[in-house]
Every structure is written in structure tokens, then in C-alpha cells.
């Protein structure tokens, strides 16, 4: 493992983290930090003051974080589940019309999502789901991207011979799927789940549109409540943004360990 590799990684780390670190600097030093040239590089003493301001402005902040976690988990579990079985069917099963189905799925990924706002909103209104977390979860239960991803993963990682052998041994399709395919794609499924979670966490436009009550806000919508009319209290907003990103980062650190373990297992099996 050469020095070059480590240098690349350190550079990547620095570049990836600096906005996040900058959030912390501004939150802990104060709003005028934004206009300081040269900028302060070390955190300041006001962080906890800012945190208390954030909670003062947003008493439901913790609830918002929980909502985001809840929505993200529900969506990622559902998306992985539905994408995996559909992806398996497209990859390994033969049934009439599937080529067109796949093409159609991919085609719909290409339609800009902005167009769907009004019809989707009307649908949610008609279903009585407006201003509830259901409006976030239900339209996101399945994703064309997930199906496309799983199809490609299963195609690449699951050898036909294994499945044939299983079917010879008398396993039905579902058994073959459950016992053979799932373990192999576990780690890629995990990655998909992670990405689904992230996409849901970052989603801003739609939740802002459909959620009206502070109790139902997700993290992004909650942080947006810190904005003033025309100008920004940078310390407060950065503090809120930082606080809403931190739990996710901590989660990643724990998830990261599992990711490594899952990955090692996958590598051995491959």
C-alpha cells in the first residue's frame, strides 16, 4: 500500500469533510465568521449557545431527526425488498414481455421528477395522506433505480450454474431466491439500502411541500425553519445543519463496521 494511496485518501478526506467542518466553525464562532478573511480555522466557544438557540427555535428538532430516520428506514427496507425480487425476476427468470418491461422501467427514470409534483400532490390529497409521513413513504416504496441496480447486481454476482443446481435438487423459484440469491447479494443490497436511505434523508422539495405540521417535519424541513425572511443568521443555520448531519455521521461510523464485515463475507463467498 504505497504512500501515494494514502496521500490520495487524505486529500479525499480533507475535500470531503471541509464543508462539514466549516459548518461547525461557523456555528461555533458566530455569524460574522462568514465574512472573515482569512477565515478562522479553529472551532470557537459558542457552539453550545448556538445549539440551545436551535432547540429554542425548533423544539421538535429531535422529533424531526427521528422522523427522518423512520422514513429513511421504511423506504430503504421497502425499496431493497421490492427491488431485489423484481431484479431477480428480470435477471434470472424468463417470462413474456419482460424486455419491454425493463425498457419501460428505465425510460421512466428518464422523465424529470419535477413534472410529477402536481399530479402526485393531487394523488396524495385524494388519498388523505397530505401532511403525514405516509406521503413521503408510500410514493417511494419502489424505485426504478433499485430494480435496475438489483438486476445488474444479480446478473453479475449470481452464477446461473448455482441456480440450476438448486433447481435440479428440487428447489422452487422462491427457495432458490431465498437460499441462494439473497446471501450472495446481501452486501450489494445493503449498499442499495444505504443509498435509498441517503436519498430519502436528503429529499427536501417534496417533504417541504407536503408536510405542514412541525411534529411531522423531517430533518431537512426542520433545519429550513431556521431561515429568516431575507437574510440568514449563518451561525444558527449552520448549527442546525450540523446537528442534523451529525447523527447520520455517527450512524455511518457504526454502519461502516458492519459494511466492512458484510463486505469481507461477500468477498469470501465470491
Amino acid at each position, binding site marked *: 500500500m504505497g504512500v501515494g494511496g494514502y496521500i490520495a485518501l487524505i486529500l479525499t478526506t480533507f475535500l470531503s469533510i471541509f464543508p462539514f467542518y466549516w459548518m461547525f466553525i461557523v456555528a461555533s464562532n458566530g455569524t460574522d465568521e462568514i465574512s472573515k478573511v482569512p477565515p478562522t480555522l479553529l472551532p470557537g466557544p459558542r457552539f453550545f449557545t448556538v445549539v440551545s438557540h436551535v432547540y429554542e427555535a425548533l423544539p421538535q428538532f429531535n422529533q424531526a431527526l427521528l422522523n427522518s430516520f423512520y422514513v429513511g428506514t421504511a423506504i430503504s427496507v421497502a425499496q431493497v425488498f421490492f427491488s431485489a425480487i423484481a431484479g431477480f425476476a428480470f435477471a434470472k427468470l424468463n417470462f413474456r414481455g419482460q424486455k419491454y418491461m425493463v425498457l419501460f422501467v428505465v425510460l421512466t427514470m428518464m422523465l424529470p421528477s419535477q413534472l410529477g409534483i402536481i399530479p402526485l*400532490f393531487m394523488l396524495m390529497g385524494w388519498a388523505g395522506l397530505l*401532511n403525514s409521513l405516509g406521503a413521503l413513504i408510500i410514493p417511494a416504496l419502489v424505485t426504478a433505480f433499485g430494480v435496475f441496480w438489483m438486476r445488474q447486481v444479480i446478473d453479475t454476482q449470481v452464477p446461473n450454474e448455482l441456480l440450476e443446481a438448486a433447481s435440479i435438487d428440487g428447489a422452487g423459484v422462491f427457495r432458490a431466491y431465498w437460499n441462494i440469491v439473497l446471501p450472495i447479494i446481501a452486501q450489494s443490497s445493503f449498499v442499495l439500502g444505504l443509498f435509498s436511505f441517503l436519498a430519502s434523508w436528503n429529499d427536501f422539495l417534496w417533504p417541504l411541500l407536503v408536510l405542514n405540521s412541525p411534529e411531522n417535519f423531517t430533518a431537512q424541513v426542520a433545519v429550513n425553519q431556521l431561515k429568516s425572511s431575507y437574510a440568514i443568521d449563518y451561525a444558527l443555520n449552520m448549527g442546525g445543519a450540523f446537528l442534523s448531519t451529525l447523527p447520520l455521521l455517527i450512524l455511518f461510523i457504526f454502519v461502516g463496521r458492519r459494511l466492512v464485515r458484510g463486505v469481507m463475507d461477500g468477498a469470501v463467498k465470491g
Partner: protein
Amino acid sequence: MSRKWISTKTTAVITASLIAIGALGVISPAKATIDCTNASADGNGCTVLTVNTFGDVIEPALVSDYKKLHPEIKLSIKKSDLDALNGTALYTQCAAGGAGNPDIAAIEISYSGFWRAYPQCFTDLKTMHTTDGNKTANDIKGQYLPWRWDQGVGYNDSVIGIPTDVGGLQVAYRWDLFKKAGLPYQRDAVSAAWNTWPKFIDFGKKYMAKLTPAQKKANIGFLDNVGTIYAAILNQGTQKYYQNDGTDAGKLIYKSNKQVKLGFDTTIDAGKAGIGTRIGQFSSDWNVGMTKGTFAAMLAPAWMMDYIKGQAPDTSGKWDIANIPGGGGNQGGSQLSIPKGAKHKQEAWDFISWYLAPAQQLKVFQIYGLFPSTPSLYTNADLVGFKDPFFNNAPTGKIYASGVQKLKPIFEGKLERCIDMAMGSAISLVVNGKEKVPAKAFAKGLSDADKCK
């Protein structure tokens, strides 16, 4: 340690008291203070009013005040970005027949021209009667600046919103930098020296002449952005992009209106004179520039003062406020409306009429600095006597009051915002040197505005 934790006598007293209190409750069911703080839906005597607003339109201190007056009402407030609320959310909700409408929605004045055209999306506040005093919109109309009131009146004379604050517009300047350049720096002298726009441009030129070449290279200038002049001039006229021809929609006159050409030409002149730093307002360069004195003057609405204080605390005392050339101006402000799909129209109207009444607007000014749209307050001692040490003890209340009273009502139409953006882009093209011939840019602005139709 006695066996009995509480003596018999004490028990008797407590029991008697409890019975008495209980009896009192039965005999005189006085207004038991309900606590609706945690109510998330209607029920248990609580009513939840959903409010969709942006920024600081609904101020926390007054929300607490209202809670004391009406503990059975809970204000559930959601803030969005301005365009997200007025441009996307309100529109989508109305397109869906009012589904998802909040009880109260704030509409910024840049959207007032647009939403005037769709009164069917709102409740006509002329038809609402307050619980106390039976007041309708007509009854409170006289309390507000006429031109601010008009921004809430839609087609068919329906009143779709009541004015909140008024932005006003004056000039915030660094008197220490003016003094250094040998120019007049006391606010009355400054106001007199630039009481017209051509004089303002001359003043700027004199300032620029005193700068060293190094400073000019570092993009130090007089005004932050000359583009702000355009909007200011347009508001100083009697017509903008529309003419009131007796119909609701009005007649588009942006091509022929001399005021539009005047605003454009004056702005271009200012740009050519090189008095602007071409820094975009609210950009990061602008924030830094404010602390470093990159620009010595900026057109500032009342709410901008707080921003300057927050961004550049080290410049305290070095700023002052002078009158804007041409007399009066406005940037910002909003109306509170009750969308058609609101579920608690009566409670919403009670709140709106209370919140926007002069007494409450005064309190908002005192605590948060937002300037009232109710002229009765312009003679209020607190407002008149208010002096801001950050701005060299300028009597900001008086200054802004005189400014907002100079403006006249301007007929606004549906394409207001779209045309504003088209013209603004055209001006930017010239100011940033991308289009050398101003007439061409003007023509482009007009043709882009044509596409708004």
C-alpha cells in the same frame, strides 16, 4: 420518625381544600387554562391553526401573546423558502383544489401581482367577520398605507390579504468613508446632495475619483450593486408594467412606460459611471464586502439594518441612513391570507386582524425592527424617537416613515414577477459587460418579457 407521614389534622385540611376547589370548579366553571402547546390536531378544546410563512413574518413574541389571549388556539407554524411557498406550494395546493391549504399563508409582495389574478384560491376577507367587534376587511382598511393595502386586493375587488410590515427603502452609507473622501457625510447634507438620481451618480463618481488605483483594482466601489436602482425608480412612479384600464387584468404597458425606460437608463448610467462593485446582494462576496468597506453605500430597506448589524458588528457606529434619491422606495413586505381550503377560517381571521393591527405592529417594530405598514404609528413617540446607535444614532423610524409615505399605489398584474426578472437580467448583461450596447439589452429584456405572456 412518626408513623403517620402526614398528621390527621393536615390530611383533614388538605381534603377539605380539595373538596372546596372541586366544588368551585363545579359551581363556577371558570376558564380553566387549557394548555394546547402540544396539540397536534383539533380536539380536547384545542384548535390548531396551520400557518405557512417564510422567514420572520410571524414573530415568536407575538405568538406567545396570542397564546395568552386565546389559549385554546395553537399556531402551528411552518417556514419555507419564499419561492417554495408562494411559487410552488400555494400554486400546487390551489391546483389540487385547495388540498393541503394551511389556514394562513403569507404572500410576499413580489407575488402579489400574480396571486391577485387568482382570487378563487383565497377567502375574500371582506366576507369574514371577527368574533370580537364583527370587523371585516373593509373595516380595517383605513389603518394601512393605501399602496400596501392594494397589494392584497385581487380581481373582483376581493381582499385576499392584509399587509404585514413595509420594507421601505433608504440609503445606508458609511459616513467615515465619505468623510475620508472629502465628501459631505452628515445625513441631512448627504440627503440634500443626492436628492435626484443623476446627482446620486455624480456623488458616486466623486467618491470613485478619490480611490487609489490599487483600491479600484481590488474592486472597491461606491454602491454595492447598481441593479438595485432599477427597482427603486420603478416604485417611485405611478405605473410600472401595467396600466389600470378599468379591467381586473390591466393593460400591459412595459414597452411604452417611460418609467421603465427611465429606471433602465439610470441604472445603466450608474453602471457606466463605474460606481457599482457588481457584487450580488446576499452573496458571500457581499457579506465580506460589508465588513471591509468594499462598498460605501447600499439601498437598504428597514429590515436590512439588522442584517448589517449581524454581518459586520465591527463597523458599528460607522454607518448612517440618508434619504433615497427621488423620494421613497420599497423592498419587501407581505400580506397574510386565508387560502380557500383553510379549515379554520374564523379563527384565522381573528388572528390575522389582531396580529396586523397597529398595536401589534408597533410591538413587532420595537422588538424585531420590522417597519409597520400602519400610518397611525408614524407619529408614535416610540417610533419617531427611535435612534439607532449602530447607524450613528440616526432616527431610523422617522426616516423610513417619511420614505414609505411618499409612495403611491401602483397597479400590479399577473406577469409582474416574470417581467421583473426579464428586465433585471437585461440590466445585468450590460452592467457585467456581456452586452456592450444598452439598447440591445433593453430590447432583449422586452422580448424576454414578451415570453412571459
